[in-house]
């Protein structure tokens, strides 16, 4: 990232959310700057995917605010959210490609929904994006005919087909071998550099995070424990950070009374 003091394009303030009575996000604050790659990390159940869903406007929060490109999305109406989503590309963890459509049709879908471009222009755009993702020639294939890595790259092609200002990528490395995973990391950096995108990646893969991130934020039990540069994260003295970097299982203190209650209580938890 060359520039400093960039504009904030995502601003999350005091975000709290519950699933039933369980608090999933507990006062989350996060700023993402223009043109940076922000990696959100954390163990399973830390709240990282929930945070992403809130930033995408897919979940409603208990309290707090989320500002995306200057729009407060927790109170925005559907029309405003629709306009905003033209500037946001999302590659979901499983790809979320439509199984009944070809890869080309999947990638083209946002253009058909949001633009009135000529058929030929759209076809060239789809093929250009597939070329960038090293997926030349798979346009007519069905998603079921692709490997796991190809599905991720096709999902990424669809996410960037409109040249969004913001790109969100949920678990790019999940289920992929290290080589394919490294290729995706390279693609993410290439997109940021060539297309000036701001990219938010949710992952639990340390190696990938260190390679692509300008800054990393680490969530633990719904709270952000640190947001900093890769170097400062590596040098952090925080126990939770070191546990994560060194892959140490977390040692939680046992509340014996609560534990006994859980084992012997009448109510289902």
């Amino acid at each position: 990232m060359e520039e400093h003091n960039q504009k904030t394009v995502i601003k999350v303030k005091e975000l709290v959310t519950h699933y039933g009575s369980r608090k999933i996000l507990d006062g989350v604050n996060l700023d993402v700057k223009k043109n940076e790659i922000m990696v959100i990390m954390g163990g399973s159940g830390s709240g990282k995917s929930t945070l992403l869903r809130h930033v995408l406007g897919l979940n409603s929060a208990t309290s707090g605010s989320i500002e995306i490109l200057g729009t407060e999305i927790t109170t925005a109406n559907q029309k405003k959210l629709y306009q905003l989503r033209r500037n946001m590309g999302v590659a979901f963890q499983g790809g979320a490609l439509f199984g009944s459509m070809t890869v080309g049709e999947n990638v083209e879908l946002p253009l058909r929904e949001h633009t009135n471009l000529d058929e030929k222009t759209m076809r060239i755009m789809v093929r250009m994006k597939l070329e960038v993702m090293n997926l030349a020639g798979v346009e007519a294939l069905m998603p079921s005919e692709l490997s796991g890595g190809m599905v991720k790259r096709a999902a990424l092609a669809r996410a960037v087909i409109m040249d969004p200002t913001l790109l969100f990528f949920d678990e790019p490395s999940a289920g992929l071998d290290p080589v394919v995973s490294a290729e995706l990391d390279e693609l993410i950096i290439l997109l940021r550099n060539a297309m000036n995108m701001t990219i938010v990646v949710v992952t639990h893969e340390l190696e990938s995070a260190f390679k692509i991130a300008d800054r990393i934020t680490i969530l633990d039990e719904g709270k952000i424990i640190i947001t900093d540069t890769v170097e400062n994260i590596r040098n952090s003295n925080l126990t939770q950070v070191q546990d994560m970097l060194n892959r140490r299982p977390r040692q939680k203190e046992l509340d014996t009374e609560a534990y006994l209650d859980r084992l012997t209580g009448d109510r289902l938890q």
Partner: protein
Amino acid sequence: MKCEISTRGIYTVIALQGEVDLHYSPQAREPILTCLKKKQNVLVDLSAVTYIDSSGVASLVEGYQEAKSSGVKFGLVGVSKAALQVLQLARLDKVFSIYDSVENLLAN
């Protein structure tokens, strides 16, 4: 986005200005294809383009293809660093004829 058309030597120069994005790229595509279909040699001047997205680049690709089938010349001039990065991403910088300026091209 603005579009100005002029004649320089054997070329019709289509100078685009401002942002060539999803909204405006059809306005760039139309004159490019129209001139090429009239068998004119076309140079697209991008020196005043502040932003070009994939739809703008796709219009240039269409122009390139049309020029090939019409047997006329097609090139880009004044490609900014930002525009070049978008072309490079799709390796189209290897496909298009890219010149510094109309003056240099005509002088050579």
